[in-house]
Each structure stands twice: as structure tokens, then as C-alpha cells.
């Protein structure tokens, strides 16, 4: 059981300056499972997500207490290089954000920098990543076109492919469909379903129904605290905490 927990947070507090954004969050993420984080705006769910690959480093004046273990190692230990962590823990953002480069170069950008030079390897990587992101069939003939010419939904799948090209273990998704229409959303959700066989996925979503549809585990956050964490089925049919129940059933009062 213990070994299946690829990411763990232990009593994590997080501060923006003097303001505490997360309080005592302890949460285990199981390997090859989709875990959804839900809760109202400002509840800390996105903050937690960005702690998991040290993206919060980019903001000044923040402070982390407690431990975040990735494969048992505290990623906030002083000798840990956040760059390495981010290579192992990929991220997909709310708005699709491909680079203004060709589709091919979008995918190869990071692998090239981390030392993959061989053209054959790169081409293979591009195809594999795009196939995994179920985009290959749509773009295989236009790999040299700018990524900006793709539709919003395609761009988001490209961003997922780009993250996959680094062969990460974990994929963090920060409201990956909130800028997309229902059809693109459905495609991304279906994609998440196939990806979980190979990756551990943590998804933050505004949309409770989405959490219900895609995830195996759900954590409900409120005011910076983890109120309840359980199997998604349990959370949505029979939550253990009154606050969760109220939120799930729309009693925000």
C-alpha cells in the first residue's frame, strides 16, 4: 500500500506573505490513479497543485511548511533542484499554452534541452507523445505548422503531448478544460481515462461533475483545508463530512 503512494503531502502549510493559503494538508496520491481536487474558488486546490511541482517557486514571498514527498523524497529539501522535479512531474494549464513554434518543435523543445539529440529518437518521441494524446491522426501531416493554428481543444491535447514527451511519472492538470467547449472537454476527459494506465494524474477542477466523471479519488478543499478525501464514488454518493455533502449537493449557503 505504502509503495503505491507516489506523491504525499504531510502537514503542509503554505503562506503567501502573512496570509495562510493552506493549512495542515496531508494527502496521498496513489500511483496510476486520477485524483481530483475540488472546492470553491480560493479554497487552495490550485495552490496545492502548484506546490506539487514547485511551480509556486516563481512567486515571491511564499513559504512552505511540512513535507511533500515524491517517491519518498521531500521535494522541498534544500538539495533538490526544482528543475529536475518538474521533469518528472508534468503540468497542463487552464488555458492551452503551446509555444509559438511548430507542432514538432513544441514537443521536442524540452527533450532536446535535456539531451535528446538524435533525430530518429526525437521523431519517435513526437509520434509516441502525440499518439498518447490522441492527436497524432489529426496532425501527423502538419507537424511543421505552427501550433497556434490548432483549435483550442487540439492545443490543449498538444500541451498534454508536450508534457508526456518528457516521460513524466505524474501529470498535474489545473482546470484543463475550463477554457474548452463541451466536445473538446469530453475528448480531454476520455484522454485522461486512457492516460491513467501509465501516469498518475492530479486534476484540479471547478466542475464537480467533471471530478465525478474522471477521477478515482477526490479531495474536497475549503478555506485552505482538506475537508475530506476519499474514493470519488464515496464522495459523490455518500460523503462522510457534512461540509462535503453540502458542497456536493449545491448547498453553498
Amino acid at each position, binding site marked *: 500500500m505504502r509503495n503505491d503512494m507516489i506523491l504525499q503531502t504531510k502537514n503542509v502549510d503554505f503562506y503567501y506573505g502573512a496570509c495562510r493559503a493552506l493549512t495542515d494538508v496531508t494527502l496521498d496520491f496513489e500511483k496510476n490513479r486520477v485524483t481530483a481536487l475540488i472546492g470553491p474558488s480560493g479554497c487552495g486546490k490550485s495552490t496545492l497543485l502548484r506546490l506539487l511541482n514547485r511551480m509556486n517557486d516563481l512567486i515571491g514571498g511564499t513559504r512552505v511548511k511540512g513535507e511533500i514527498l515524491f517517491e519518498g523524497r521531500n521535494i522541498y529539501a534544500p538539495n533538490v533542484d526544482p528543475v529536475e522535479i518538474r521533469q518528472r512531474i508534468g503540468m497542463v494549464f487552464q488555458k492551452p499554452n503551446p509555444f509559438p513554434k511548430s507542432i514538432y518543435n513544441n514537443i521536442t523543445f524540452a527533450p532536446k534541452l535535456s539531451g535528446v539529440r538524435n533525430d530518429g529518437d526525437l521523431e519517435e518521441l513526437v509520434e509516441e507523445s502525440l499518439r498518447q494524446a490522441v492527436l497524432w491522426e489529426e496532425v501527423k501531416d502538419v507537424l511543421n505548422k505552427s501550433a497556434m493554428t490548432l483549435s483550442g481543444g487540439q492545443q490543449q491535447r498538444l500541451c498534454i503531448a508536450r508534457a508526456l514527451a518528457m516521460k513524466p511519472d505524474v501529470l498535474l492538470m489545473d482546470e484543463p478544460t475550463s477554457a474548452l467547449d463541451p466536445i473538446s472537454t469530453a475528448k480531454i476527459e476520455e484522454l485522461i481515462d486512457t492516460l491513467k494506465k501509465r501516469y498518475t494524474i492530479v486534476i484540479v477542477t471547478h466542475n464537480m461533475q467533471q471530478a465525478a466523471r474522471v477521477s478515482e479519488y477526490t479531495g474536497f478543499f475549503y478555506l485552505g483545508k482538506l475537508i475530506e478525501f476519499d474514493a470519488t464514488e464515496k464522495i459523490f454518493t455518500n460523503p462522510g463530512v457534512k461540509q462535503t455533502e453540502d458542497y456536493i449537493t449545491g448547498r453553498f*449557503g
Partner: protein
Amino acid sequence: MEEKRHTSAEYERELQEIKDRLLYMGALTEKALENGSVALLERNAELAEMIVREDDKLDQLDVALEEKCIRLLALRQPAARDLRFITTAIKITGHLERIGDMAANIAEKVLILNDFPQIKPYVDLPRMVGIVRGMIRKSLDALVREDIELSRQVREEDTVIDQINDQLFRELLTFMMEDPRKIQVCLYIMQISKSLERIADHAESIADMVVYMVTGKSVRHKSFS
């Protein structure tokens, strides 16, 4: 469903309406049973006929309520407790409708019985009706108050009904053996008793569902078989 109001007052109102309708259907079945009991004791054919006629109403209420529940499922996407409540309501309305059918069956048998001479004073049947009515009321009260204790009581009373039914069966069997002319009458009484026993089963099912609704855990079939 207690303290906190749903942000959509309309939704909250609709949930309440479902509860009210269930209680109303429950009240109708109780009334039918009471009338059936009275019709039997007072040999009142008119009353019995009314019961049969009024079963229509319950059938329509059942269809309407089920549609309401499905509408709510489609338009509001309820989750957790609300979802359990609505799916429970769909099943409960079916049980209540069945109870109504049974009551009508009983009334039909009463109509037939009234054409025969009474073989002995009716003691057990009114007693069963009293218990069964209480079970219906308690099971629905349990639903409204989310009271698991009431559910437990209903379950206990069901065994009482089963015992009375068995005892009545044996008693009537003796009557039949003793006097073959009484066979037909006894058969009808047996059927009424059996119907009451089945109503009690339905009430117990409702009570079990309430437990599921409140706790999210199924207790059905635990005590069975």
C-alpha cells in the same frame, strides 16, 4: 437537508414536494386500509367499492411522482444525499402504489366476503390492519425525519405480522378441514391476510430504503433468507 438551505430555493421546494407527495400517498394507502377494515367489520359494500375506485388515484400519483423524480434527476443532477433521496423516492412510490393495489385487492375480497355469512368475529384481521397502517406511517415518518430507529421498529413489526399471518393460516386450515362449506370464505380471508402480510413487506422495504438513504449503506436482504 436540515440546517443549510440549498442556494436554489426552487430545488429545495421540489425536494420538499416529493416528500409531501410520498406522505400524501402513504396517507391514502392508510385510509384505504382503514376503510377496508371498516368495510369488512361493518359489511359495508359501498365503502369497499369506493376503495377499489380510488386506487386509480394512487396509480396516477405514482406515475406523476416518478416523472417528477426523473425530471429532477435530469434538470438538477443531484448528488450524495439528494440523489439517494430521489432514487429512494422512485422506489418508494412504486411500493406505495403496490400497497394501494393490495388494499384494492383486499376490498375486492371484502366485497365477496360480504355475500357469505361471517364464520367468526374478525379479530386478527383488524389487528393486522392496525399494525400494518402503523408500519406504513412509521416507514414514511422515518423517511421524512431520517430516523433509523423508526425503521428498526417497522422491521420488528413485520415479524409480528408474519406470525399473525401464519397463525391465522393454521387456524383457517382447521376451519376448512372441519367444515368444507367454509372453505371459500376461509380462502378469501387467507388472501386478505396474505395481502396484509405483503403490505407489511412493502412497508419494511420502505423502511430499509430509508436506512440506505440516511446512511448510504444497504440493509436490504440482510435479515432475509
